[in-house]
């Protein structure tokens, strides 16, 4: 067990280093002098002196490993550099937006589980009936319709045609005027794909368990139908969705970037998307760092939980 945990932690650290190395290395290996990223328009109007000074500031005169180590040191101190377009510290921008993303992701995940899992149970229990097809249709749409298309269709139907649900307010900070209703459309758009995944997973697990021996035994003993479903079938089929949640997380990152862009949600995802247009490399690097650390942390945690929870798995 212990070696497994150590191994997983090492993998996690390697992933973080790998991710940041990619970001860092690409910026050096792409052949463009990174100072060009800091001064758009081919550094017109910069004096030679400023150029040199920026070069020393960015540690460009030192060898690559030293540069990376220095950057890493800065990160650990909380200094992620300066945004090129907003002229503010990246760490501050990220810190301001991160809670918003977290809020949206949590609501979306809640939607995913609260809708997906019961639908999966229903679909499994009433296999072959209209409920089953309804559930499976829902899952199909969730997996084939891209997140941004779902978001745009949602805006089209609910905000434009029905004038019903308001869109998110495009303000820099949340808190002024944000109500539950602002969460509805983005959370549904973001959470549809996870809901579909949960639904299918729960359905498959439930179908397997429902056919198993001990369920038949419980029924033969005379246990009430619903009790059988809940006490025996459901709890045993929950292991797979837990692992699925880890995989889900990376999908959330992609989904957040897109959903926040559509709904002008002031979160990290939109920051990253805007950074692509603005060629704002420090912001992208910072966002990448946050996402990688988050993802690695969550998967590591889930692996640990899973290893403890499932007695069938033994790790040497």
């Amino acid at each position, binding site marked *: 067990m212990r070696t497994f945990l150590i191994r997983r932690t090492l993998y996690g650290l390697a992933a973080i280093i790998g991710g940041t190395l*990619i970001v860092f290395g690409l910026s050096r290996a792409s052949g463009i002098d990174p100072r060009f990223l800091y001064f758009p328009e081919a550094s017109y109007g910069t004096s030679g002196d400023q150029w040199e000074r920026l070069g020393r500031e960015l540690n460009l005169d030192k060898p690559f490993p030293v540069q990376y180590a220095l950057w890493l040191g800065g990160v650990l101190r909380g200094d992620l550099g300066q945004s090129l377009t907003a002229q503010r510290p990246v760490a501050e921008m990220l810190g301001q937006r991160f809670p918003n993303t977290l809020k949206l992701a949590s609501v979306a995940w809640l939607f995913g589980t609260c809708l997906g899992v019961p639908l999966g149970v229903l679909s499994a229990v009433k296999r072959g009936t209209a409920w089953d097809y309804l559930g499976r249709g829902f899952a199909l749409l969730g997996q084939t319709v891209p997140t941004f298309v779902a978001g745009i269709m949602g805006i089209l139907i609910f905000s434009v045609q029905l004038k019903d649900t308001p869109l998110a307010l495009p303000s820099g900070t949340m808190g002024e005027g944000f109500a539950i209703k602002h969460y509805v459309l983005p959370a549904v758009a973001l959470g549809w794909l996870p809901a579909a995944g949960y639904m299918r997973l729960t359905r498959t697990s439930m179908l397997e368990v429902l056919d198993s021996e001990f369920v038949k035994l419980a029924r033969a003993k005379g246990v009430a139908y619903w009790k059988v479903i809940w006490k025996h079938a459901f709890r045993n089929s929950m292991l797979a969705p837990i692992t699925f949640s880890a995989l889900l997380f990376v999908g959330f990152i992609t989904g957040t970037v897109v959903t926040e862009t559509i709904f002008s949600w002031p979160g990290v995802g939109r920051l990253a998307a805007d950074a692509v247009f603005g060629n704002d490399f420090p912001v992208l690097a910072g966002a990448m760092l946050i996402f990688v650390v988050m993802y690695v942390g969550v998967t590591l945690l889930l692996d640990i939980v899973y290893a403890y929870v499932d007695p069938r798995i033994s790790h040497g």
Partner: protein
Amino acid sequence: MTEAAIAAGSRGAARRRKGRLSPLGSLWDVARRYPTLPAAVLLLLVFTAVFAPWLVPVDPFKSDLLARNTPPWGFPDGSSKHLLGGDQVGRDILSRIIYGARVSAMVMAVSVATGVGLGTTMGLVAGYFGGQLDEFIMSVVNIWAALPYIMVALVMVVLLGQKFWVLFLLLALLSWPGAVRLVRAETLSLKTRDYVAFARVAGASPPRIILRHVLPGVINLVVVSATLSMGSIILTEATLSFLGAGIPPPNPSWGAMISEGRRYLNDAWWVASIPGVCIFLVVMAGNFFGDWLRDHFDPRLRQLR
């Protein structure tokens, strides 16, 4: 029953007697057995992609400002000159959809081929040789799989530019880990088969063994995996184009069309919706087709019928 009655009784009637539900005859049954609808959609995509220059009614790059935001034909103010309407600078949407199909199909074909090809090679090598090489390859795959894909994609596009080869590389890397894991697992199990041992004893070199003996056993899975990853590649390409990091402008791309049409949802909703529907149809067709392939050709799912 007279012989004539039996002979004249349509197969439909016989089926009805047996309790089957399709009175339309044997053609319907054949159609049900094969994934006709998904295959038709995919064939349409390929056909459109190949014959695009001859199919377009209007030049997709030409903007006609008089035709800005024209509704599709059949709606008020719609004209037959722009069957699916005009976009925000007056380009014909139908033509852009057709050319978008061409670009999407090309990107998809190259990316899937590269990604799955590379993944298969590495999976074969990792599975067959085992040991440290296997560990190394699997570590690389696991680390890559731990990274948030879209962030790496965005970073790469910012730094390397929004070019086609960057997109091919990115999309190939999307399907690559799945292919490696799948092929490696299958290779591990095929490695223990007798015919591989015989080949080794007979003095065959490892490359020969891999290519002539292991690869044919793996190819089924590879085809299924490639088809199934088609859907996610289209989705990812559309998402990247939507964010401005995908197919380089001015090439038409369905994702980019949706992004541009976002602003006009109130008045010209068709500009953003029509490409969305197209993406949905293609992804669904790809998924269904891949599912059918898997049901029929995946050796692990083989059952006695």
